[in-house]
């Protein structure tokens, strides 16, 4: 199977002869912001916005699994989709497959540009040219189309994400054929290879999605994503609609693929136990902000944000004890249209002080690799 020999980025920028090394991060996200405008209805103009993402930053290394947890409406899916620009974020930087040096250089350029009080037209043009070459979010459409092949997406609902009129073999190989990764007469052999990889019977090749159960369809989804040999896959709640016995099959399949192909994942889920088990690092989101991020074992042993503690305490466990009634359990997520001024969690937080009502805490390093957005944790 052919894989693209040159990244399109190398073609744009001939000076870039330092390909990213093993130690360089695969994906770096900085200050991602997305505010959905509320639809104006009738004659009224609404300026209100849903603050879905309010400045999210994180890094995924090669072959690493980053878990993203939080309750509905916290912005997990918006984050995942923004990375592939299935949703266009309002602002922020997404660096994919860049050396640390390149990122640093551009960040500096950006800082210089932002410090200009009144940039001239040529300065603006120069900056946006530079941005178009490195910031995923600013790529021109044509480049984006090619580059997106290296990032794939596995959807939550296996019943809605497969074309009911397409045979499984075609579903898996449509994109590789379309993009010239394989010749159109190779589709059968390629499809068979990936059916084997995800543990589906070879007869599946000419069958249709309705002939498969939820777990099997999720395997088809995984085969389709992996067939493009991506370096990074966003898995958006891939097991939440599956039964326990099927869930463990799919989780183990994802781990096998990661080991075999070295793919990195952003694993979006609401089930903390699953995320702790599967992921190397875990990030917790609340009301469009990232509140804590740490390696999974560290986060489990030493959660520092009160919301992380609440999530862990509220999750049902097999320990012979009734569900806990932790502080902050009562109460709801604030409206994303009118976010409170300070910390979004302050109204439910047992540790809140006056400062929390006034100022929004930033995600800051507590110890190496452990970041928390809470004033009290940093005291």
């Amino acid at each position: 199977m052919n894989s693209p020999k040159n990244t399109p980025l190398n073609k744009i920028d001939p000076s870039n002869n330092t390909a990213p090394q093993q130690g360089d991060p695969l994906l770096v996200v900085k200050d991602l912001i997305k505010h959905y405008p509320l639809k104006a209805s009738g004659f009224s103009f609404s300026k209100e916005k849903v603050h879905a993402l309010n400045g999210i930053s994180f890094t995924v290394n090669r072959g690493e699994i980053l878990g993203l947890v939080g309750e509905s409406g916290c912005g997990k899916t918006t984050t995942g989709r923004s990375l592939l620009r299935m949703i266009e974020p309002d602002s922020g930087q997404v660096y994919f497959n860049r050396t640390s040096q390149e990122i640093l250089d551009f960040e500096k350029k950006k800082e210089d540009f932002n410090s200009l009080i009144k940039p001239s037209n040529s300065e603006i043009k120069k900056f946006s040219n530079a941005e178009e070459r490195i910031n995923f979010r600013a790529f021109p459409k044509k480049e984006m189309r090619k580059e997106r092949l290296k990032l794939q997406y596995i959807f939550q609902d296996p019943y809605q994400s497969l074309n009911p009129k397409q045979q499984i073999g075609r579903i898996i190989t449509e994109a590789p054929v379309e993009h010239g990764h394989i010749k159109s007469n190779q589709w059968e052999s390629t499809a068979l290879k990936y059916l084997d990889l995800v543990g589906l019977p070879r007869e599946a090749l000419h069958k249709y999605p309705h002939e498969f159960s939820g777990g099997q369809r999720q395997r088809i989804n995984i085969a389709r994503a992996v067939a493009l040999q991506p370096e990074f896959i966003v898995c958006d709640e891939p097991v939440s609609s599956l039964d326990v016995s099927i869930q463990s099959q799919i989780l183990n399949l994802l781990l096998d693929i990661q080991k075999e192909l070295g793919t990195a994942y952003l694993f979006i889920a609401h089930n903390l136990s699953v995320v702790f088990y599967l992921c190397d690092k875990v990030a917790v989101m609340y009301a469009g902000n990232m509140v804590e991020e740490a390696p999974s074992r560290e986060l489990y042993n030493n959660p520092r944000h009160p919301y992380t503690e609440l999530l862990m305490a509220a999750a049902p466990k097999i320990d012979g004890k009734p569900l806990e009634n932790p502080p902050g359990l009562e109460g709801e997520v604030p409206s994303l249209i009118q976010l409170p001024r300070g910390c979004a969690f302050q109204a439910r937080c047992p540790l809140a002080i006056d400062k929390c009502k006034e100022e929004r805490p930033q995600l800051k390093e507590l110890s190496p690799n452990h970041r928390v957005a809470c004033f009290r944790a940093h005291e």
Partner: protein
Amino acid sequence: MSLLEVKNLTTRFNLLEHQLIAVEDISFSLEENEILAVVGESGCGKSVTALSLMKLIESPGEIDPQSQVLFQGQDILSLSDEKLQKIRGSEIAMIFQEPAASFNPLFPLGSQIAEALKIHRGTAKEEALKTAEHLLDQVRIAEANRRVKDYPFQLSGGMLQRAMTALAISCEPQILLADEPTTALDVTVQAQIINLLKEQVRRYNMSMIFVTHDLELIDGFADNLMLLYAGRIFEKSSSVDFFKKPLHPYGEDLMKAIPRMGLFKDEIELFTIKGQVPPSHRRPVGCTYAPRCNKCFKRCTQEEPPLFNIGERQVRCWLYNKEDQK
């Protein structure tokens, strides 16, 4: 006499192409103040069991005429619709999975709760509305006096499930039938609702049948549990005993397949149960779990095991056949 006694419940769906046996020969009893969990994976028949208890099965579904559901000694399944109405919502109340789908979107919450009181208890309108407000307050909906006039769309999923609980307990039923009441909710909201249900069950001395797919929820919550697989009872046990050690290999496998909080991939590989639940019209001969079971032996593939009594517990597995052990 038990509060509720179910004898040989079988519910079938006569589809065009084949007959689907959703639950087969299910017998159990529910005592006063008992919380019984009915647990299993999708398609095991747990919801159909709950619906059959209230005779809420519609054509092409049919409850076998041999089945009996004795509520205080009276067979619910043989009652006329008119008499059934008096029991539904009044003596036995239900809470469903999708709170948004359980309320009529066109009427305020308060009037929907008051309606139940008017019909079952003959309460006057004004008084019923007052009681509705009181009930909303009791399930801890803030500003109940204002919320009483709210329409369902104005409440979040968690709030609606609270309101649903208020509606269910409005007539102080003896049995609460909860069908996956927290599946559509977030974990913190789920914990709120579970705590609330437990509190209300205690307060009104109710019994509860709690249908769920989530074993983790049951532990520390239900007194007893009934594990279903492909329409059959596989194990009946107190939940303390079950979580100490499940008898049936299926229960054991399930417990090993659940990722537990605090387990990491570098320590342990999650157990996978091979294959999938057989569709009801293509169930294997013998034990329905045999093709997936790693303790399966010859007899399992030839003959379906009956329920064996092991002390207080019951299990459907040939491993527990006492005759073999002699």
